[in-house]
């Protein structure tokens, strides 16, 4: 069942000549883990903002076609209606954090307070979230005094605590260290297993390879390809045409095939590569 449906959707920011999104037709299913990849300036961030309703409600411009999110037409629905269904995690924690809280605990409580969540429930959820994301050691610190990566963890927690049905993540780990990145991806995977729909825009195709059900390439403001993760991420020529570099494991397997050391499918993950090498060593 589709939970997000772009129907011939186009978007033009006021004052710009060309469209940032052109004729997007795409259905994302309930409970799906959906990845978006593509070059900079391709419209990926606008794509994410549209699902949350920031486009058209926060930015002036023109929509053609429509975007239906959990039964709501984003153009005709209010952002507050959309915000009970969709959570958006942005690239930079500076844009995300409210600054309303003097410390991390208070920052996390902010959204729940606005929804009138009972105090007991609020304390329980804040505690759980602090543990889940690993914020214990700085829960009493001011969010704006934390390092970039620590701030991003707080920002992610502040969205997750609202328990959205659809979680849209726009390059959420761009500023995180490898541990933070792994932690966030494991967390996203856990949420996906609970049935939350995940829409993830990222450059880290290694992680999409491990986790995503389907991947779309959004390049030069248009959808270039939608397919199963393996189908898209091991199509070296397609990726190259879209200026995306395939994973080291895909490149390695391709090189081994070229040198006639390996016959078989292209690899995508570390496990694929381990299997390939044991075949090569036996053969």
């Amino acid at each position, binding site marked *: 069942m589709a939970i997000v449906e772009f129907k011939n959707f186009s978007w033009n920011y006021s004052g710009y000549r060309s469209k940032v999104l052109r004729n997007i037709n795409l259905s994302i299913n309930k409970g799906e883990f959906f990845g978006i990849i593509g070059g*900079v*300036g391709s419209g990926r961030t606008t794509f994410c903002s549209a699902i949350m309703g920031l486009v058209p409600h926060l930015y002036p411009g023109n929509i053609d076609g429509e975007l239906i999110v959990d039964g709501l037409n984003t153009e005709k629905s209010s952002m507050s209606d959309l915000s009970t269904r969709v959570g958006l995690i942005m690239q930079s924690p500076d844009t995300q954090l409210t600054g309303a809280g003097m410390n991390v605990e208070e920052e996390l409580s902010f959204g729940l307070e606005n929804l009138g969540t009972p105090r007991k429930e609020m304390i329980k959820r804040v505690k759980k979230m602090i543990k889940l994301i690993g914020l214990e050691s700085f829960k009493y610190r001011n969010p704006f005094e*934390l390092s970039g*990566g620590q701030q991003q963890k707080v920002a992610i927690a502040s969205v997750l605590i609202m328990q959205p049905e659809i979680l849209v993540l726009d390059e959420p780990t*761009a500023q995180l*260290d490898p*541990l933070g*990145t792994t932690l966030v991806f494991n967390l996203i995977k856990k949420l996906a297993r609970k049935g939350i729909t995940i829409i993830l825009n990222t450059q880290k195709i290694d992680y999409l390879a491990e986790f995503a059900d389907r991947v779309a390439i959004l390049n030069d403001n248009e959808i270039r390809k939608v397919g199963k993760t393996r189908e898209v991420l091991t199509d070296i020529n397609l990726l190259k045409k879209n*200026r995306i570099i395939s994973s*080291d494991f895909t490149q390695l397997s391709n090189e081994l095939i070229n040198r006639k050391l390996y016959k078989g499918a292209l690899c995508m993950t570390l496990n694929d590569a381990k299997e390939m090498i044991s075949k090569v060593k036996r053969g």
Partner: protein
Amino acid sequence: MSEPVIKIKDLTFTYPAGVTALREINLEINKGEVLAVIGQNGSGKTTLVKHFNGLLKPSRGNVLVNNNNTKKFTTAQLSRTVGYVFQDPDDQIFMSKVYKEIEFGPKNLGLKGSELKRSVKEALEIVGLWDLRRKHPLDLNLNEKKLIAISSIIAMKPEVIILDEPTTGQDHHGVKKVESLINELSRNHTIIVISHNMDLVSRVASRVIVMYDSRILFQGTPKKVFVKNALLNKTYLKPPPIARLAQSIKGFKRDVLTIDEFIDELISNKSRSSKSH
């Protein structure tokens, strides 16, 4: 042995709010090296490099740039020697034309006329953006903005260039471009690069320092650093993908970092094991 351009002696730094971000750092950075600084978020990487151009001054200990103590100089003076490219280009870019953005730094240093023009042209050509010189910097895409930020530092011809997370927010194309630019710049500059991108670090760095909990935990060439799994685990860092694959295979050399090295090792491993049978 080349002469150190930056010497750090017993550097400790505590932020006004009371958080100690650096403890007893001792380090010498040599002319012409590409030094990568890695470590988890909050381990002190950015705080450390901000001492090199005087944005921060030591609470205890000293930082010497070409034997000048940073305590006695302003950031404006030190930036002739040490250029700092911020992580977010939007923190750095502020003029209305690319050309003017690049011109600002060298003009401020007193360059005029044909000398000024030449250094702006060179700085834009080396990043490949001379054709965009009449554009508004904020109309450029993220890859181009990053290159503009780097170019504006190059134009001041500093001996040392610090790149703080140069690949953040860059697409694959942008990462490749930054990588080739580091290689190009390293011929005439000392480069210090902070990065979470272990792939990039393994390919460009001549030396890697690993920061952990406000200290330098260990340092060495990428080949030496990326095989120290126990230490890397402690700092929550992981070797690049190909290194992890190589380390998981029995009988393989452990310090394999690139695809080419991996294939060479695979071929010699196969011939070794066929001989032993």
